């Protein structure tokens, strides 16, 4: 057993159902994205939340203020991203692609004041016109479990691909 597993186990002892509930929360999120219910997806975010996709590479570039990210949305830019994606003039997603979001290896890495730090592995498939794009990596979440309903305070999707083979990052992975 490694240290992380021990931490997770310790939290689980305090609240045996916590990881299962967090998994349910992430599955709900994935399901909304699969179905293009992106405005409902956005409603899962707390005001002031961030959504980021750092550059591919060795993982050393972690600050959007000093490195060029693929996506570094504050709450306003994220809202605008969603608004844009609902328009027919977001040409890269018209007609809309089909997507499927897979989540696994969910781990609670920290818990402070009812706010959980969570990591999860992901694979997201995007299909359009006979081309299947695959995005994979790790999500890092900060989830406020002290409010009802729970809200995402931060989501960072770290890609493990060494370059962006699909070319576009127009869907929410």
């Amino acid at each position: 057993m490694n240290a992380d597993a021990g931490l997770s186990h310790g939290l689980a002892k305090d609240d045996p159902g916590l990881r299962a509930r967090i998994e349910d929360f992430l599955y709900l999120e994935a399901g909304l994205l699969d179905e293009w219910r992106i405005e409902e997806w956005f409603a899962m975010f707390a005001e002031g939340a961030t959504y980021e996709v750092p550059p591919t590479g060795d993982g050393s570039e972690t600050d959007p203020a000093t490195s060029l990210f693929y996506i570094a949305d504050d709450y306003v830019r994220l809202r605008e991203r969603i608004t844009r994606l609902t328009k027919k003039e977001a040409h890269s997603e018209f007609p809309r692609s089909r997507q499927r979001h897979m989540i696994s290896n969910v781990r609670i890495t920290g818990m402070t004041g009812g706010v959980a730090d969570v990591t999860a592995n992901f694979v997201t498939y995007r299909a359009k016109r006979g081309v299947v794009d695959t995005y994979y990596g790790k999500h890092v979440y900060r989830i406020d479990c002290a409010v009802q309903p729970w809200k995402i305070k931060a989501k960072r999707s770290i890609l493990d691909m060494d370059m962006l083979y699909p070319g576009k990052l127009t869907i929410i992975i």
Partner: protein
Amino acid sequence: MDTLLNPLPHSLSGMVVEDRDRHLFRVARRAFTDDAVLEEERSNIFDRCWLYVGHSSEITNNCDFITRPVGGRELIFNRDRAGVVHAFLNTCPHRGSMVVREKKGNALAFRCFYHGWSFNVNGRFASRFDEGNYGKEHYGGGCADLAQVPRLESYRDFWFVNFDRNAMSLSDYLAGAKEYIDLVADQTEAGMEIVGAGQQYVINANWKLLAENSIDAFHGFPVHSTYFDYLKNIGSLRMESGNSDFTARGMTSLGNGHAVIEYASPWGRPIARWVPSWGEEKRELVERLRQGLVQRFGQERGIRIAETSRNMLIFPNLVINDIMAITVRTFMPDAPNRMTVSAWALGARGEDEELRKLRLFNFLEFLGPGGFATPDDQEAMENCQRGYKNLREVGWNDISKGMPRVGPPMNDDEEQMRCFWRQWRDRMADRTAGGK
């Protein structure tokens, strides 16, 4: 003329047809789809033109190196112990393995892992094998050294290689583009730098579609309405001009197939054009930068650097777009219907932290695979590539916009693409003329 156009021209030069009297300019769609065309492009264009390899700021210190593909080769771009810049072909002279496998680093020597041949960072063979392994001749004539690219030259920290030993100088090749590189390089006295590792991505379209798209103002509003909506919604759209050159609406042919379009910026520019969404506290800082440019270069050139947006293509595959941020972008075909793009953000060295952040956000909001604009460009290019499946019946692109115009071309005409295509035609038609 139309009735004379064969949908499937066989000669390369016949793929570009210009009729100045009738104001018609046509390009055969086969030029975007044919393996044989790509083969000719490799030998007539990519083997003979100056190709961008990197920026000085990417190898700041002695012994810094980066590796990257350029012109279909694998290169090492580095600085040796004395600070001299080199570009080597990344292949061991022994049995061919790529010698350097990291993307970047700092090293006193390069060592091929396969059999242990080693090289100084100036390329010289450095292994010490026991006597009897190799004869004296073995080390003669540089045969055991890393091979340098035939030509490596730079202009204002932008480094280029040429695989044609007899090519004209970089300075002659860049021709009128130098003035516009100056407008970027002069933005700060401290010099410009590449920020971070940049973006690498694939577009399933012919490389020439991106050459066209990068300097195409005609598509701006139809394709990017959602981006302009976004700017408007957040208070980053500022059309009024003050003392700017808001009337700038030009296109300039820069020679050798290079061209630039210029226009008044509707967006903020961290180098000295403020927009309300940045807040009042940045306004003063930006105004100071602006005044600094005016002091250094006078009112006209200072304001031109601060205000005006420019999209420039340096033939065949370097884009320097000085717009809401500065992108340096190069692309190389992997196949007729597929290219790999490398794009970097360029910023002022020692720039104010907040302005650096705005620069990066400006970049990723528009540019790159996760932006609000570039993905729609990609969609347009990939859509063109698919449309070319109909080329047996509909075989030609029209690039005639603005041909009847009296006076200088406008930035949303298509004269800048015609500059590209004339150069393409001439280089594809005349091997001996290429690069000379």
